[in-house]
């Protein structure tokens, strides 16, 4: 996020796109509700009639995967009606003309045909967005989990740049991070392209720095990202070390992942539960959970906050940092004798200027945490970014054209399936389905179907149905709901008994490789409870302890 969560309540315009905020980020949604109660305008663009649409001024219920059409059409309105911030564009950006030229080919009337959103609504939202100073964009995986994910993000940032909604309180461009420490994991360099603090792994000077710091010559071979890894499991990749990640639930087209895992020479799983990936493990290491160890998490608004040990881990389980230190020692890479994660943080901070002013000591003293960058021990938290001009010097406009999703509805698979999260469960649900109260509220998977599609297919609310795509078939209960558009169906992916990700496509974004969880072609086949379930074609090494 360029801006901070507490700024949301003071915003005057919120553009929420591809984010079911009340379910995925409930506390951020509370801030949005407060802003709306105060009088802020709210525009939601989402194929589903999510809760926020109840209090929204506009719901742009677009067809899944048509985001670039919608966003370019909003930009079209802004440039053709002269609503852009010329002074900001001149001072702080470059390449505006190419975007201007491109979006001129996206008039709202054409966009209406492609997105299903009325042209007049597109105009109203674009005008309101451009005409409000404290106007923030909030997005999540509904924007990124597409083969055009990067394009979608560029199209959004074009809107931000052309209206000068950057470096302003309660405005900005705000991806809401999905996990407690997804920001922190990237910050710490758990990514093939960056060392800690976003120092490029392809920069020889950076590699030299870390070669010296760690006493090991750093490889110049580029690393694989997660999506690339999934595609070469069992072929190029022979050994896999999973720490706290259940790829058999969370990766798209999971049938293929399972098959590939059978061809690995070594799979190590370090986790708190015997998860689905453990079925393919050679060694399983029991880890401590967040309540059993010390450290930091970094949240969505770059806020580094303490995690504190409350109880001892069960049995012989150990904190991940303790396990990793042991493994490094045994691998011949002697490590400092870390007694506490504070020492590990200090080592990272000494190598990463963005965090060099942060320490456990400072975090302990401030219940609100510290938002990076914090480069010196007395530097304050950074509430919002780009305050003193765009960080890279000039904000770069990136013209993007619409490309259709990898799969579209066709006669054989006439529906479009999107997947996502619910309020009551969390990702692979390793934790939440072990809560009686949550499982009681939402015990099993469901597939949302529009009443007219249900009637046409002869499916009733509460009935079982098979959801079928080119990759797999899973059975789920049907929830007839006007929450989805006609022609669209929606499923959560939390339930191990209903492997939603056996259905999704691993066709990925060209830049990030992120799978298109939000769009794939599907069909529904009504079933009765008695009919035997056909297991999807994935390899099972189903061995339990």
């Amino acid at each position, binding site marked *: 996020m360029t801006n901070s969560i507490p700024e949301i309540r003071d915003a005057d315009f919120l553009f929420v796109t591809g984010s079911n905020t009340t379910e995925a980020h409930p506390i951020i949604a509370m801030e949005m509700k407060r802003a709306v109660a105060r009088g802020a305008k709210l525009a939601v663009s989402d194929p589903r009639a999510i809760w926020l649409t109840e209090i929204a001024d506009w719901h742009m219920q677009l067809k899944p995967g048509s985001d670039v059409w919608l966003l370019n059409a909003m930009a079209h309105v802004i440039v053709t009606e002269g609503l852009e911030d010329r002074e900001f564009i001149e001072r702080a950006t470059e390449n505006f003309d190419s975007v201007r030229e491109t979006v001129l080919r996206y008039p709202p009337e054409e966009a209406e045909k492609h997105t299903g959103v009325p042209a007049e609504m597109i105009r109203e939202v674009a005008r309101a967005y451009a005409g409000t100073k404290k106007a923030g964009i909030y997005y999540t995986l509904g924007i990124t989990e597409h083969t055009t994910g990067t394009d979608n993000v560029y199209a959004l940032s074009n809107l931000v740049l052309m209206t000068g909604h950057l470096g302003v309180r309660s405005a900005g461009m705000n991806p809401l991070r999905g996990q407690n420490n997804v920001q922190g*994991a990237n910050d710490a360099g758990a990514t093939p392209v960056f060392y800690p603090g976003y120092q490029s792994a392809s920069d020889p000077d950076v590699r030299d720095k870390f070669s010296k710091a760690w006493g090991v010559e750093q490889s110049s071979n580029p690393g694989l990202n997660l999506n690339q890894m999934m595609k070469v499991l069992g072929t190029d990749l022979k050994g896999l070390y999973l720490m706290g990640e259940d790829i058999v639930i969370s990766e798209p087209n999971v049938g293929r992942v399972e098959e590939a895992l059978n061809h690995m020479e070594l799979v190590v799983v370090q986790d708190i539960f015997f998860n689905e990936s453990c079925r393919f493990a050679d060694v399983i290491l029991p880890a401590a959970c967040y309540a059993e160890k010390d450290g930091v998490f970094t949240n969505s608004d770059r806020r580094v906050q303490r995690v504190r040990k409350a109880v001892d881990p069960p049995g012989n389980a150990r904190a991940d940092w303790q396990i990793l230190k042991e493994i490094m020692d045994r691998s011949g890479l002697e490590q400092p004798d870390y007694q506490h994660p504070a020492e590990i943080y200090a080592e990272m901070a000494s190598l990463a200027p963005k965090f060099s002013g942060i320490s456990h000591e400072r975090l302990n003293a401030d219940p609100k945490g510290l938002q990076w960058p914090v480069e010196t021990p007395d530097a304050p938290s950074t509430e919002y970014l780009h305050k003193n001009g765009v960080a890279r010097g000039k904000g770069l406009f990136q013209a993007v054209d619409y490309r259709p999703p990898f799969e579209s509805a066709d006669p054989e698979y006439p529906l479009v399936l999107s997947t996502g999260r619910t309020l009551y469960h969390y990702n692979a649900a390793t934790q939440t389905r072990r809560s009686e109260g949550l499982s009681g509220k939402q015990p099993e998977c469901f597939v949302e179907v529009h009443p007219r599609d249900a009637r046409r297919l002869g499916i009733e609310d509460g009935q079982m149905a098979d959801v079928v795509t080119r990759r797999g078939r899973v059975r789920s209960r049907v929830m007839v709901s006007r929450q989805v558009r006609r022609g669209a169906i929606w499923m959560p992916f939390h339930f191990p008994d209903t492997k939603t990700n056996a259905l999704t496509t691993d066709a990925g974004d060209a830049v990030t490789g992120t799978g298109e969880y939000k769009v794939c072609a599907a069909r529904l086949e009504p079933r009765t409870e008695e009919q035997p379930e056909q297991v999807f074609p994935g390899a099972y090494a189903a061995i339990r302890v």
Partner: protein
Amino acid sequence: MADGQFVIIDGNELSFEEGETLLQVAARADIEIPTLCYDERLSPAGACRMCLVEVEGSRLMQPACSFKATGGMVVRTQTPKVERNRRFLLSLHMADTEQDRERAEDANPSRIFDLADVHGTAGCFPKVEQKRSGRPQDVNKFIEFRPERCINCSLCTRYCEQIEAVSAITLAGRGAETTISTADAKSLTDTTCELCGGCVAVCPTGAMTEKPALAYGKPEKELEKIRTTCNFCGVGCQLDLNVDREANRIVKATSPPPGTTVNDGSLCVKGRFANDFVHHEERLTSPLIRQEDGSFREASWDEALDRVVSGLQGIADRHGEDALAFISSSRCTGEENYLFQKLSRAAFRTHNVHQCAAT
């Protein structure tokens, strides 16, 4: 600040903004006025009458939580009359709820008794006959409403309406029978309630309480609070794990006071209620190694770690280091992710390290 606009509270000349209440002006000057039904995030209800203060020129005392400051106003917050009212009210609230402190605080702390510590009471009044009804048939697993402890301060219903904005609970009934209920007194799980537990967090008397902690049976005051960061989504809510130290057990999670952390006193259903997994019987407690026949056996840490290291080194020797892949988790800490990429890059010289941020 309005130019030259002052109120005098307890002899202190205090400036104020147009529209500010006496309570807000006093709070800025660290003049404490006791409240039971006030929350800075919510519109004032003026229901509990604890904040009544004397305003010169006004025959009746006025509620500081909703009475607006105006220029030249002279206010007294600590006179015998004000204190007498506070003591009387506290006795009345006790007679209406619970007069024995230990019983009153069997689960959550009671602000009534905290205030009585400071201001005293007017003695023990005859117990008020209980007319508020509860919802004993409510099947939700998280939130219990105990009507006999309710003082109708409406903090819970205002929170539900103004912060969580789902309006699942409401004041129902009239007069002495006024209670907190849902539409048709349904279970919370059958309403718009999202089980966030904000009603529990704002309740000053413990009428709204956490079912699991109530069943556990140890008062909150005997638990140790450990401040930490929630491990679910990316908002980074701060929460206090309430720990029974002797039993090494998390009994419940509570939210820090409003205004102190990023979550401003709120938590969602997962942060507040989904910590069962920590003590779940299915937690892994020993390293496991797969045997020839495919089943797992328990192993010592030494054996398991050696097996991991020799396995990784063997693959690096046979196929090169880039045949290894390291996938970490955004669920682990920053320090652990740092060590994990260091393991990959320094111990095994490969940049094949990533985590779920790819999606």
